[in-house]
């Protein structure tokens, strides 16, 4: 059975009459109200985005979702997406495990690479490492999810030597989805992870999503739409060997659709 949810990116529009931007406190109250309504009406999942520019106010999805957790009882709570490439996976796990404890097992994480460049400068990373950051950090996040005590080393954060990462989530495993959007490349990369994928409708028509889906899952596993022919691009990402758990979801926008087409810029 398909699960139905709603998503807010926490965008701050300008008031049509005054020209002033909506205030974060007012938007948060609105969004809390939408989540409570969705929970009361039996929708299954509620998501907020993460952005780091003045057009949006939610830069910390786990904090916003904790407020939602306190006012709801059944709806699942997820980011869409957590910008994992510029974050510390230890902190990401701690935050969402805390959310899982607060909500008694309703938290999920959807991780993405970021569709914007500014988080990289803000947190001291180089966009040239866009793919390498994501690959390394998703690997670490999945290690932390698998075991409380982690020994790890990599390029982008200090090593961990039998480090305890707590609290542990109520759910085992804590659901982790990979956000996809923007390009066939990002769809293809998502297929390498043993995670479900969550797609943004940057594709204007389902047919395009279906073609990308074939890239994610491999030939013969998608909805029967042939993958698009693609010009060769330099290999920047080596998929993990597992290809399990490929269920997927798509956020639907009710008021906007920005087709990024075949641009090579970004996933979510």
């Amino acid at each position: 059975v398909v699960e139905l949810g709603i998503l807010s990116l926490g965008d701050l529009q300008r008031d049509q009459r005054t020209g002033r931007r909506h205030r974060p406190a007012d938007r948060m109250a609105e969004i809390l109200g939408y989540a409570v309504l969705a929970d009361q009406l039996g929708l299954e999942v509620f998501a907020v985005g993460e952005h780091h520019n003045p057009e949006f106010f939610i830069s910390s999805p786990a904090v916003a979702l904790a407020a939602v957790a306190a006012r709801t009882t059944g709806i699942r709570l997820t980011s869409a997406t957590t910008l994992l490439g510029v974050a510390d996976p230890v902190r990401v796990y701690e935050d969402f495990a805390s959310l899982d404890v607060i909500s008694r097992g309703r938290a999920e994480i959807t991780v993405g690479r970021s569709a914007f460049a500014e988080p990289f400068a803000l947190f001291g990373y180089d966009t040239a490492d866009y793919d390498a950051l994501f690959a390394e950090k998703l690997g670490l996040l999945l290690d932390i999810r698998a075991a409380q005590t982690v020994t790890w080393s990599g390029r982008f954060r200090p090593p961990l030597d039998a480090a305890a990462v707590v609290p542990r989530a109520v759910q085992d495993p804590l659901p982790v989805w990979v956000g996809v959007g923007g390009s066939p490349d990002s769809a293809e990369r998502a297929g390498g992870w043993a995670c479900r994928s969550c797609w943004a409708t940057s594709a204007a028509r389902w047919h395009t999503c279906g073609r990308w889906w074939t890239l994610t899952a491999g030939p013969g596993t998608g909805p029967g739409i042939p993958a698009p022919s693609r010009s060769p691009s330099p290999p920047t990402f080596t998929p993990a060997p597992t290809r399990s758990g490929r269920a997927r979801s798509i956020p639907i926008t009710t008021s906007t659709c920005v087709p990024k087409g075949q641009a090579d810029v970004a996933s979510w």
Partner: protein
Amino acid sequence: VVSQAAFDVGTSRQGAIMIGSAGEITGKLLDAVKALSLDRIFARVDWGGLPTGLVEESIARYATDIAPALRAA
């Protein structure tokens, strides 16, 4: 900003912009669920400064008028 061309594509039967009657939107979403084997849908209900009351009405129609047919599919 959404161009007229993107808006036209988005509001077409295979597009991602969900503007229409509950019946029309149910049909579009059923198409998507079937075509893409979806197991979850997110509706971005408050994008673009849609006034709060209209967002709430959208959520209510989605949860009460559209959801049953999708769950039964």
